[in-house]
């Protein structure tokens, strides 16, 4: 039997798991002291992530120990190749949750910042959940091309256009009904606020760069939803609270509660309504891990996702 294991660990029994908020699980972080202090309460354990989230070993290995397997592992339907289901562990449920939090209605236009793995999945998911149009924003030509050709989005290169003005025109002056931030704290930008964040980070007065978040809040139509799936870790500056409050925006965010979504995502894949396998641009053996990570990190050779095959 083949299974997909969610990247965030739930115990399945606490208040949060019982209400399908698995990433907020009370019981799966064996090192809760840091997040208890920094965030007020500790959150769930995550594989191959910061020690603040438990320090569980990653899954790029021949064997992986899975706590609470009855909650976290999902059987893969017969006949589906590994390539089509591997991203159901993290990128796909993250992108899907980003779109799900937007409460998409008929005729809605959704803007997605970031065309990496999560962004691509958010685009596909927004269409699955009934979006009329999806507009994707990035600066890497190969990622924008992928968003256009494989996910069916309209694309904007933020180095070529003023994103807010472009979105305003493309949406008949209304603005996008929902904005999904699939970038997070390591955002890049071209404006003065980006320079400001870099300076404040350099002198350790700020940890995260909310370039995309600011833009999404300002671009979003009045009464719209901003869904934050990109990762933030600490503190941000110059958060446009006035715009968010006075425009009556709904801000929704959080780490992915994959266990809530994986069964229906596997069903979409089985029916052929969803195929995330196009994210795979490179393949490698575990022995070539370092080189593969370098390629991924530096986005060399149009790299989107590297898939390791442990047996090879």
């Amino acid at each position, binding site marked *: 039997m083949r299974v997909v294991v969610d990247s965030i*660990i739930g115990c399945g029994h*606490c208040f949060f798991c*019982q209400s399908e908020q698995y990433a907020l699980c009370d*019981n799966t972080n*064996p090192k809760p002291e840091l997040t208890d202090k920094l965030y007020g309460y500790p959150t769930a354990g995550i594989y191959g992530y910061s020690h603040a989230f*438990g320090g569980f070993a990653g899954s790029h*290995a021949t064997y992986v120990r899975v706590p609470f397997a009855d909650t976290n592992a999902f059987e893969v339907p017969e006949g589906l190749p590994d390539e089509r289901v591997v991203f159901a562990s993290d990128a796909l449920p993250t992108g899907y949750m980003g779109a799900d939090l937007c409460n998409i209605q008929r005729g809605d236009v959704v803007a997605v910042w970031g065309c990496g793995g999560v962004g691509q999945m958010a685009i596909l998911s927004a269409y699955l959940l009934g979006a009329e149009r999806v507009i994707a924003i990035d600066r890497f030509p190969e990622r924008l091309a992928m968003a256009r050709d494989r996910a069916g989005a309209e694309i904007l290169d933020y180095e070529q256009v003023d994103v807010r003005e472009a979105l305003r025109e493309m949406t008949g002056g209304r603005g996008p009904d929902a904005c999904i931030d699939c970038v997070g704290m390591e955002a890049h930008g071209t404006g003065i606020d980006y320079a400001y964040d870099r300076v404040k980070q350099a002198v350790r007065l700020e940890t995260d760069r909310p370039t995309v978040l600011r833009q999404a809040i300002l671009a979003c139509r009045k009464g719209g939803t901003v869904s934050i799936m990109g990762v933030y870790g600490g503190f941000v500056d110059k958060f446009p609270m006035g715009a968010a409050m006075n425009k009556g925006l709904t801000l929704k965010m959080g780490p992915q509660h994959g266990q809530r979504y994986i069964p229906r995502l596997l069903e979409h894949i089985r029916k052929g309504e969803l195929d995330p396998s196009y994210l795979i641009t490179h393949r490698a053996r575990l022995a070539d891990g370092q080189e593969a990570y370098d390629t991924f990190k530096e986005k060399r050779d149009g790299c989107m996702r590297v898939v390791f095959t442990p047996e090879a």
Partner: protein
Amino acid sequence: MQSKTPRLDDIHGIPARARKMKPLNVGPNERVVSAAIGGGLVAWALWRRGALGLLAGAFGGALTHRGLRGHCPAYEALGLSSRKAPKPTPMPLGAAEELTRIERTVTVARPANEVYAFLRDPAHVPHFAPHVERVEDLGEGRIRVWTALSGERSSWEAHIDLDHEARALVLGHAEGPPERLAILLGDAPGGRGTEIRLVLELSKTRGLLFRALTAVAGADPDAWARAGLRRLKMLLEAGEIVTTEGQPSGRFIPLTRAAA
């Protein structure tokens, strides 16, 4: 709804750690001036050095702290305040809190009778209480607790002061200064399980230094309480204690492999 937890007269809702024992008594303008003069003195002290520098540095540091914190011990002693706001009602420590009192609460998604039954079985205690090796039931409401901390084994005898089905369990001991360990159970609202409150009353005669030393050794009572409650919750809810112990790491090469 009135809680059915038996109220111990001196055990109340807001633990000492949550109370502001040093309320604001310096006005906002004075705080800025105090911090600025203090900072200047510290800078001058660093430049001047010597005995005078040390003195100025200490005084400057105190002024800076007073400005940043907004509380002046001298004002407090004299009953003064340069704030215009009304004086806060003090929340003085109760008599029992003159002992070292530690209170920690956790909510477990299990009914109170189940929690109580689990706690009441001595065999379960070593699984969640850090450093506890064994609990022996001596009968007639007495138990012996065996602890081990970094190889040091010791034991103490406790008597059960109060045992209230599904509500409370209070332990005390006969030897030395009076100390107590109380576990109080209350229903969480909306069927969300049981609120477990752990209250430790430790003797102050053990002294500050003793506590500091034991904290370094990993026996800080507050950390002990938190870890114990967290493990208890994991056992009751998830049925196991989650750990990453023994997993491989690329960072630390095991000695056996390095030697090979």
